[in-house]
């Protein structure tokens, strides 16, 4: 298990290759990468993530451990950046390794669904008209809740 929280940019391709190299015989690997979004009708200039690093590491480790146990994952990596980022830059990467694809998909998705509401990161968008904090979405609570059934 590899859990990292850092202000330093990371290279999603290199991270994915390193993850596969470590566990290629396992059978199935899923990678999710979250990127800074800027859509034509809602463009942003930058995204700044605030973080409580010590708590973030603890929360991400707990979430990843739960996913490993629940889906019998062979390995998991979670990388989350904070600080200022530009559109297209990677924010988060979750990689799950398993003997079968469904467990790898489920493990990666569960980690992302929990991370959205339970890991201490806060997004602030900078647009042409100013800055604002991104509001928490009830859809994110619902996405997490389905794993708790």
């Amino acid at each position, binding site marked *: 298990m590899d859990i990292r929280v850092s202000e330093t940019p990371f290279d999603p391709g290199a991270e994915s290759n390193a993850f596969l190299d470590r566990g290629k015989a396992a059978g199935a690997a899923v990678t999710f990468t979250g990127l800074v979004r800027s859509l034509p009708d809602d463009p942003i200039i930058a995204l700044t993530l*605030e973080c409580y690093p010590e708590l973030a590491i603890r929360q991400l480790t707990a979430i990843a451990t739960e996913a490993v146990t629940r889906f019998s994952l062979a390995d998991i990596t979670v990388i989350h950046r904070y600080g200022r980022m530009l559109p297209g830059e990677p924010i988060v990467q979750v990689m799950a390794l398993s003997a079968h694809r469904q467990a790898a998909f489920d493990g990666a998705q569960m980690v992302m669904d929990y991370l959205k509401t339970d890991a*201490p990161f806060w997004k602030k968008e900078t647009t042409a008209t100013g800055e604002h904090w991104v509001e928490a979405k009830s859809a994110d609570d619902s996405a997490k809740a389905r794993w708790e059934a």
Partner: protein
Amino acid sequence: MKVLYFAWLRERLNLSEEDIAFPPEVVTTGDVIAFLAARDEAGALAFERPAIFKTALDARIVPHGTPLADAKIIALLPPMTGG
């Protein structure tokens, strides 16, 4: 006790952390929020909806109403928006 504020809460209070010697009636994490809400106008506005905040004692998230006990740091966390 050291108190940490994050994101828009930090901005509304114009403060990222402070040391507070709480009076003896402040026993739980909920009491801390009530204390800060009653302290001044900025606190009253910032903690208008106290139930939305999570709290961490010594960098561990705890349920609402947990006793502060011997904790050295309390962090007040607005709804999280990572990922």
